[in-house]
C-alpha cells in the first residue's frame, strides 16, 4: 500500500467528495419534489394524472439511469435543452430517484390502515382533510427509513455522472487509477469517503426516524 501517494492525492479526493455531496443533496431534494408530485399524481382521482404518474414511474424504473443521463446531457441540445454536466447530473439523478421515491411514498400512504381514512371521513373530514391531518402524518413516519434507503442508493448513484465527466469521487478515482496504476489505493480512498458520507446520512436518518416514532 502506497501511503505517500494516498496522502498526496487526498486533498483532490476531498474536493471531489464535496462535489459528490453537492450532487447528492441537490438531486435528493429534486427527487423528493418529483416524488411528492408523482405520489400525488399516482393517488389522484383523475385518470389522466394517474396515467402520467404511472408512466413516469414505469419508464424511469424500466430504463438505466445512465441512459437517462445521456439522453438529457447529450440529447438535450437537440431539443433545445443546454445543460452543463453538473446540472444535467443533478436533474437526471433527481428525476431518476424521484421515481423510486414515488413508490416509497405511495407504499407508505397505502400502508396506513384504511380504517384511519374511514374514521376521519365519518367525522365529516373531506378526502383532502383526512389525507392531510390523519393519513400523511402517519405515512410520513413510515417513509423515513425506506426513503433513507433510497438516499443511500442515490449517494452511490451519483457515481454515474463520472460518465459525463463531472469531477466527483468516482471520476477522480478513475483518473488517478489511470495516471498512477494504483487501483486498490484509489478505490479504498474513494470508497472510504463514500462510506463516511453514507454513514453520516445513516445517522441522520436514524435520528429522524426515532424523532418521528410513535410514542
Amino acid at each position, binding site marked *: 500500500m502506497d501511503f505517500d501517494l494516498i496522502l498526496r492525492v487526498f486533498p483532490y479526493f476531498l474536493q471531489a467528495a464535496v462535489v459528490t455531496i453537492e450532487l447528492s443533496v441537490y438531486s435528493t431534494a429534486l427527487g423528493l419534489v418529483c416524488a411528492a408530485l408523482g405520489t400525488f399524481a399516482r393517488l389522484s382521482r383523475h385518470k389522466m394524472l394517474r396515467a402520467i404518474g404511472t408512466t413516469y414511474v414505469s419508464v424511469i424504473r*424500466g*430504463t438505466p439511469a445512465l*441512459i437517462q443521463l445521456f*439522453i438529457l446531457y447529450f*440529447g438535450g441540445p*437537440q431539443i433545445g435543452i443546454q445543460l452543463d454536466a453538473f446540472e444535467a447530473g443533478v436533474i437526471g439523478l433527481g428525476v431518476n430517484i424521484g421515481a423510486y421515491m414515488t413508490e416509497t411514498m405511495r407504499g407508505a400512504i397505502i400502508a396506513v390502515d384504511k380504517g384511519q381514512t374511514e374514521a376521519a371521513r365519518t367525522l365529516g373530514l373531506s378526502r383532502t382533510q383526512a389525507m392531510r391531518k390523519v393519513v400523511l402524518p402517519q405515512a410520513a413516519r413510515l417513509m423515513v427509513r425506506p426513503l433513507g434507503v433510497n438516499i443511500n442508493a442515490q449517494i*452511490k448513484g451519483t457515481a454515474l455522472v463520472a460518465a459525463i465527466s463531472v469531477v466527483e469521487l*468516482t471520476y477522480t478515482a478513475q483518473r488517478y487509477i489511470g495516471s498512477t496504476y494504483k*487501483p486498490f489505493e484509489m478505490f479504498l480512498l*474513494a470508497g472510504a469517503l463514500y462510506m463516511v458520507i453514507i454513514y453520516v446520512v445513516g445517522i441522520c436518518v436514524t435520528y429522524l426516524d426515532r424523532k418521528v416514532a410513535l410514542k
Partner: protein
Amino acid sequence: MGLDFAVVPEYLDRLLLGSAWTIGITLAAAALSFFGGILFAVIALYAPAFVRWPFKAFAWLFMGTPLLLQLFLIYFGLIQIGIDLPAVVAGVIGLGLHFAVYNSDIIQAGIRAVDNGQYEAGRTLGLSQAQTIRKIVVPQAVRAVVPPIGNNMIALLKDSALVSVIGVTELTLSSQLAISKTFRPFEFYLAAAACYYVINLALEAGLHRIERRIQVAR
C-alpha cells in the same frame, strides 16, 4: 439540429446485437450473483470467524461504494496483478460480485427466518450440519426470498449499462458507436432506452412466472 428517427433503422442490427449482449451479461451476472449470494450468506452465518470477518469487511465495502467504482477496481486491479481479462468478463464479475453481496444480505435474512425446528428436524434425522443447511434450510430460505432477489435482478439489468464505461460493447456502448457515426445522441439513446424497457418487461414477466411457480412449494 432537430430530431430525425429515420437514421435509427439503419443501425437496428447493432442495437439488437447490443441487446443480446446486455441480456447475456445480465443473465450471467445474475447467475453469479445468485449462487455467490447463497455462498456469501452461508459464509456470513456459519463460517469460522477467521473467514467470516474478512468476508464481512469485503461485503461492507461493497455495499458502501458505487458499482462503477467497483468496476474500475476489478478491471484495472486485475490488469495490475497481471490478469488481463476481456472487459466483458471483468464486467460480469463486477456486476455479479456487487449483486451477490446484496443478495447475500437478503438470503441471510431468509435463512434466519426459517424455523429453527426445521434445522432440528434435519439433525434429528441424522443429517450433518452441512447437509441440513444445504438440503433443508437453504432451499426454504431461497424460496422465501425470490421476490426481493428478483428485484435485484431487475436492478442488475439496468446497472449492466455501466459496463459500457469499461468498454464492453453491450446495448449502451452499441448506441454510442452509432452516435459517433451519426451525431444523433437523442435518437439513439432513446432507442436504447426502448430496448432496455422491453427487456425489462420481459424479465419482469419471467420473474413473475418463477415467483408463481415457487409459491406452490412453500
